C-alpha cells in the first residue's frame, strides 16, 4: 500500500519530523483558500503515485493568488501517466540552499533493512544509484537490534553532510527508521530533505509504502487505504482481496498462482497480444470468487477478451469447472469472450463439465492464450 504524500507527511509530522505547512485541496477554490491561509509562495502538488511528478507538470509554484488558481486548475483533473489527479497538496514554499536524500528500504539480497543518505537529493535517487553509487551512503541494519544511533551518524557523516546539519539529518533518519520498523513500511524516504537558508532541516517530500502483509497490525494506516487507491479497479480488487495489476493491453487474464498468471501474461505477449491485467484468483475457485474476478475484468473497458487459466493442484478441476459455470450463468449475456483452460487434478472431468455455450475451452495453456489473443484481435477489427 502506497500512502499519498499528504498521508505520509501526516505520519512523519506526528513522529516529529519537521514538514512544511500544508493543506490538502480537492477543488480549485479549496486550493486557493489553502494558499491564502498558508501564505505565498506555495507549491501545488498533485497527489498521485507517479514518479517524476515535477517534470510531468504535477508540481507548480505559485507566488500569488492568480498563480495559485492557475496551478490548481492546471493540475486538478490532469492525467499524469495514466492517473487522474483528484487532489493537490498546497504547501508552504521552502527557501532552500541544499537538498539531501534520506531513506530506508529492505535490501532483500541481504535480508536486512538498509538506511541511505545522499547529498544529491531532489533528483531521482535511483538514477544517482546507477550513475554515481558512491554518492549514496548505505548502512545495513540488523533487524534484531534495530538501527543503532551510531549508524545514523555514520551514514550522515559518510554521505558528507555538513557537520552543522548532521545532527538534524541523523535525527530524521533515526525517526524514519523507527517508523519503518514500527509501521511495517516497505520503503520510506524523504527526497528532498531541504536545508533552508536559515539552516533548518525540513522534509519537503514524503514517501511511505506499507507492507500489505502487515496491514493487519497497522489499523490506522489501513484506514488510509481507501483514500490511497488510485482508481475504481484498484479499489474493487482491494475489496475482493485479489492481487490485481492493471496493464495497458486488451486481453483480460485470470489465473491461480502468481507465477502462472505472470506466465499467462507473458504468453499473451509472446503470441502477439497485449495483456490487460494481472489477476490472481488464489487457491480454490468457488463460484463467488470466479464471479468477482470476472466482474473485475469485465469492468475494465479496455478488455476485449478473457483467458481463464487454472492449474488445479489440490483443488479438483471438476469443482473449478462448476464454479466457472455457476459464475457465468449469472450473466444474461457474457460481455466478452472467455477462453478457459483447466489443468492438473481432474482437469479432464472439469473440461467436460464446462458449459461451452458460455466459454470456449482449450486443453493447453498455449492454445488457450492464442485463442484469447485472436478473439481480442477480432473485436478490434
Amino acid at each position, binding site marked *: 500500500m502506497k500512502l499519498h504524500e499528504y498521508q505520509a507527511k501526516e505520519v512523519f509530522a506526528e513522529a516529529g519530523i519537521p514538514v512544511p505547512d500544508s493543506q490538502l485541496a480537492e477543488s480549485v477554490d479549496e486550493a486557493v483558500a489553502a494558499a491564502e491561509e498558508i501564505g505565498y509562495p506555495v507549491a501545488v502538488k498533485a497527489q498521485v503515485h507517479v*514518479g517524476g511528478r515535477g517534470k510531468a507538470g504535477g508540481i507548480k509554484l505559485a507566488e500569488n493568488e492568480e498563480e495559485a488558481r492557475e496551478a490548481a486548475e492546471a493540475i486538478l483533473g490532469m492525467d499524469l501517466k495514466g492517473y487522474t489527479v483528484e487532489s493537490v497538496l498546497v504547501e508552504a514554499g521552502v527557501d532552500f540552499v541544499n537538498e539531501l536524500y534520506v531513506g530506508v528500504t*529492505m535490501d*532483500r*539480497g541481504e*535480508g*536486512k*533493512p538498509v538506511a541511505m543518505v545522499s547529498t544529491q537529493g531532489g533528483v531521482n535517487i*535511483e*538514477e544517482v*544509484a*546507477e550513475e554515481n553509487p558512491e554518492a549514496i551512503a548505505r548502512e545495513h541494519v*540488523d*533487524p*534484531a537490534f534495530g538501527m543503532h544511533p551510531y549508524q545514523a551518524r555514520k551514514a550522515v557523516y559518510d554521505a558528507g553532510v555538513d557537520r552543522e546539519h548532521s545532527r538534524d539529518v541523523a535525527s530524521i533518519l533515526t525517526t524514519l527508521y523507527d517508523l519503518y*520498523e514500527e509501521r*511495517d513500511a*516497505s520503503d520510506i524516504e524523504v527526497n528532498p530533505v531541504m536545508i533552508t537558508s536559515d539552516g533548518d532541516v525540513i522534509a519537503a517530500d514524503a514517501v511511505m509504502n506499507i*507492507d*500489505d*502483509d*502487515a496491514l*493487519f*497490525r497497522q489499523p490506522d494506516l489501513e484506514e488510509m487505504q481507501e483514500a490511497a487507491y488510485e482508481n475504481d479497479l484498484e479499489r474493487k480488487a482491494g475489496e475482493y482481496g485479489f*492481487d490485481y*495489476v492493471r*496493464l495497458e493491453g486488451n486481453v483480460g487474464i485470470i*489465473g*491461480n*498462482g*502468481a*507465477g*502462472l*498468471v*505472470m*506466465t499467462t*501474461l*507473458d*504468453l*499473451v*505477449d*509472446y503470441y502477439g497480444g497485449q*495483456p490487460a491485467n*494481472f489477476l*490472481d484468483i488464489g487457491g480454490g475457485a468457488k463460484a463467488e470468487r470466479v464471479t468477482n474476478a470476472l466482474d473485475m475484468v469485465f469492468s475494465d473497458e479496455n478488455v476485449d477478451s478473457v483467458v481463464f487459466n487454472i*492449474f*488445479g*493442484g*489440490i483443488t479438483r478441476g471438476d469443482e473449478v469447472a462448476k464454479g466457472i459455470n455457476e459464475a457465468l450463468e449469472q450473466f444474461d449475456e457474457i460481455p466478452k469472450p472467455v477462453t478457459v483452460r483447466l*489443468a*492438473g*487434478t481432474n482437469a479432464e472431468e472439469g473440461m467436460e463439465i464446462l458449459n461451452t455455450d458460455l466459454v470456449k475451452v482449450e486443453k*493447453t*495453456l*498455449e492454445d488457450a492464450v492464442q485463442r484469447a489473443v485472436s478473439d481480442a484481435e477480432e473485436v478490434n477489427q
Partner: protein
Amino acid sequence: MSILVDDDTRVVVQGITGGEGKFHAGQMIEYGTNVVAGAVPGKGGQEVHGVPVYDTVHQAVEAEDADASVVFVPPAFAGDALFEALDTDLDLVVAITEGIPTQDMAKVYKRLSEVDTRLIGPNCPGIITPGEAKLGILPGNIFESGNVGLVSRSGTLTYQVVSNLTDRGIGQTTAIGIGGDPIIGTDFVDALELFEEDEDTDAVVMCGEIGGEDEEEAAAYIAEHMDTPVAGFIAGRTAPPGKRMGHAGAIVSGSGTGTAQSKIDALNDAGVPVGDTPEEVADHIEDFL
C-alpha cells in the same frame, strides 16, 4: 535418489489442527509421508489423522524424534512459529504460509544465520521427492519419480512445468518450491548446489521470476560450479516496474533492476537455455537427457 527429504524424514506439522494444516497433513500422510506429530499450543494430547498433537514443537520433536517440520500457521503467528521451529534441532523447516510480514521474515532470516536448520519458504508449495515424501501442498499425483531436479519460486507454475515433464515421461528426483517472498530461506544457489551434489539428478529445471537478484546469482553459480545441465524459465517478462505481481517478491524496481530480461540474459550467459513457454523448458530438458 533425492535431496533433503525421503521416506525416512520424520515430519512435525505445525498448525495441524487448523483447516489448511489438517487437510494437507492428511494429503501428506496419504502420499506416504512419515508425519509423526503435530504441534499446536493448547491442543496437546489430541490426535489428528491418528497423529499425536503436542503443545510445543520442542515436545513434538523430542517425543517423536522428528527431523523436519511443515508450517501451516497463519501469517500473523508464523514468524513466531518459525522461531520456535528454529529453536529445536530440526534439519529442515518448510514454511507454507503466505503473507508473513517482511520485517518478521527479516528477523527470522537473521536467526537462520545462527542455527544449523535449513528453511524452505515461506510462501511456497513445499518440497516433494516423488514416491517417498512430500512436505507441503504440492499435488502428489502430477509428480513422478525420475532424474530431473526442479527448483521454483512459484507454485502453480511449478505444477505446469512438472506436468509438461511428466506428460513426456520425464520424472523428478526432488522438486522444491523456494517461495515467492522477498526474504526466503533456501535460495536458488542453495538448491542448485544440492542437485549438483545429488548423483541421481541428471538435469535441473529452474523457474525464476521478476524481482531481486537470486536468478542472476544462480546464473553465476551455475557458470562456475555446475556440471549438471540446467534449463530455465523466467516469469514476468511483461510486468511493469513498481508493481507487485501477486508474490510479495515479484516486483521490478523503479530503477529497472529485477527484470526478467536481466535474469534471462544472465542465465543465457551462463549457458542455461531459457524457454519462452513451459513446453520449451521441457524440450530443453529432453535434449539434455
